């Protein structure tokens, strides 16, 4: 089980931190103890009482995932400036959150909604549209959970452990305390995880450039590296302008449509909590910008990772003592647990409210809802684990890519109703279908790449396919709505005529 990269100091630090966090996960059931956990508001939303700081840690821990820490530097290492689109993406997301989410929260809190699909059903009274939003949410979340497992796999391997047993063990522990404590578990663990990640990144961005001769040297080494490779660069090529901008914008619009980010929103104590967080959460974006630069530091440090995903672990192993590398790996692994827990809770809430309650047992009690959601959360996590153990990693990555495209197509259904009463359910459903299936088809024919090249009057422009699908979605919804309104206007006269 152990290979030649094994370092006892790193392993001991890692194991101790993992045990602390696991104990916290189980103890969390007693944190801010409710009268009963046997209610979906308690298990699935932590009692809708999280204030500014808890929400800050929870959403920060949930949105900036372990996979981010691995994948963003990996892309920056591979292609350079283009991978930096994660920064404008995670800046632009907050004006959107500030404008939309307090309204969504207010609607949900007033009516006791737990999911985005609940809100849609409450507003439009359409079971079909509710189901479309719910299925999209679950489909988009499943590969996202699998991605967190990939993040954990990378650091477990970097610790010098072989085989799948450590991964399975870590995930089963996660599954059990999420079952027991619900959203309280990741909310409590997020404190530890986020503080650890902040420490790791601040140390890394302060110490590593000193060791490597300053940021000027880091950028110069990266530039030389890309020149030698003949691909990528530390500035964007003109052909990358549109992909960069559309990926940033599309991702920012999609980010808080996911069940796990919305769970953080619905669990907040008030709209003001969300507004304050839209102002305070960008602190994590600053962190992400610095994390992205780890990809360039690898060039300056002369690290030659076998795969791009190993950039960060290899860099830490090369530049830090064993115990601190262990601390950093624990931060990343724990960083995977928080989003994986919230994602499984978000998916379970959707299943319980918008499938079980809607179709199987409409008379289900709040306690019954909580029980269904708890069991679903176990199944969801086991499903993600099986995907990672038995299917190629690329499968999860491809699905995750489509997941972003899919979830973006729920934006009109979830958001438009908060600002206008103009759209009707059949129109939004038609738009969703065109965006979802048309977008998937385009991505499929482009070889599961997120970009699609348009030819407009001889000029070619390459854009994010999710955003393209969203434009089609909105246009179709508007046109169908106009047609429906035309029919509605005719209807009364025809009744009179008969």
């Amino acid at each position, binding site marked *: 089980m152990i290979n030649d990269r094994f370092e006892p100091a790193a392993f001991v630090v890692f194991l101790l931190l993992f045990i602390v966090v696991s104990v916290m996960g189980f103890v969390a059931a007693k944190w801010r103890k409710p009268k009963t956990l046997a209610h979906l508001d308690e298990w699935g939303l932590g009692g809708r009482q999280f204030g500014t700081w808890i929400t800050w840690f929870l959403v920060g821990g949930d949105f900036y995932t372990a996979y981010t820490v691995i994948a963003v530097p990996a892309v920056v290492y591979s292609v350079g*400036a283009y991978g*930096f689109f994660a*920064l*404008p993406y995670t*800046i*632009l997301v*907050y*004006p959107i959150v*500030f*404008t939309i989410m307090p309204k969504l929260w207010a609607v949900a809190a007033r009516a006791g909604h737990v999911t985005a699909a609940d809100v849609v059903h409450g507003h439009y009274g359409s079971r079909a549209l509710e189901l479309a939003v719910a299925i999209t949410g679950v489909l988009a979340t499943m590969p996202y959970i699998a991605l967190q497992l990939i993040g954990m796999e990378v650091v477990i391997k970097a610790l010098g452990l072989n085989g799948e047993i450590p991964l399975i063990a870590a995930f089963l522990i996660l599954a059990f305390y999420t079952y027991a404590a619900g959203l309280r578990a990741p909310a409590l663990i997020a404190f530890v995880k986020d503080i650890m990640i902040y420490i790791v990144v601040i140390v890394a961005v302060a110490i590593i*450039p000193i060791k490597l001769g*300053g*940021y*000027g*040297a*880091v*950028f110069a080494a990266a530039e030389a590296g890309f020149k030698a490779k003949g691909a990528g660069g*530390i*500035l*964007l090529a003109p052909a990358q*302008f549109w992909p*960069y*901008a559309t990926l*940033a*914008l599309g991702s920012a619009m999609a980010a808080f449509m996911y069940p796990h980010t919305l769970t953080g929103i619905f669990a907040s104590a008030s709209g003001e909590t969300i*507004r*304050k967080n*839209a*102002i*305070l959460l*960008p602190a994590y*974006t*600053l962190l992400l*910008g610095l994390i992205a*630069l780890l990809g360039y530091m690898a060039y300056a440090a002369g690290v030659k990772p076998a795969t791009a995903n190993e950039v960060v672990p290899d860099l830490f192993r090369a530049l830090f003592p064993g115990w601190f590398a262990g601390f950093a790996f624990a931060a990343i692994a724990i960083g995977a647990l928080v989003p994986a827990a919230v994602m499984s809770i978000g998916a379970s809430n959707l299943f319980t409210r918008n499938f079980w309650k809607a179709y199987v047992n409409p008379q289900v009690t709040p306690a019954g809802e909580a029980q269904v959601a708890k069991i679903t959360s176990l199944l969801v996590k086991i499903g993600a684990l099986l995907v990672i153990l038995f299917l190629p990693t690329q499968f999860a990555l491809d699905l995750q890519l489509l997941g972003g495209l899919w979830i973006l197509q729920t934006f009109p259904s979830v958001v438009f109703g908060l600002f206008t009463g103009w759209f009707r359910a059949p129109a939004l459903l038609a738009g969703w279908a065109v965006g979802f299936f048309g977008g998937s088809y385009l991505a499929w024919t482009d070889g599961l790449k997120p970009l699609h090249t348009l030819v407009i009057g001889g000029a070619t422009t390459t854009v994010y396919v999710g955003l393209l699908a969203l434009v089609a979605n909105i246009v179709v919804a508007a046109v169908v709505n106009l047609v429906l309104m035309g029919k509605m206007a005719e209807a009364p006269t025809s009744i009179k005529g008969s």
Partner: protein
Amino acid sequence: MYVLLLLPFIGLLFIPFFNMSEPSLLGFPFFYWYQIAWVPVSSLLTWIVWRAARGGVRHDQ
């Protein structure tokens, strides 16, 4: 006041404005420090909008 929230979109989505190395700052090419600088600026703009909206609510009461 919500118009202020459009500024980050303008500042960050028009790539030719900032896709350059110079002027660099502390070793960071312009492309990088410019975008990183938008993090606090965007946060500040949101804070201004929030304050203004809160003031409005108080005024109404």
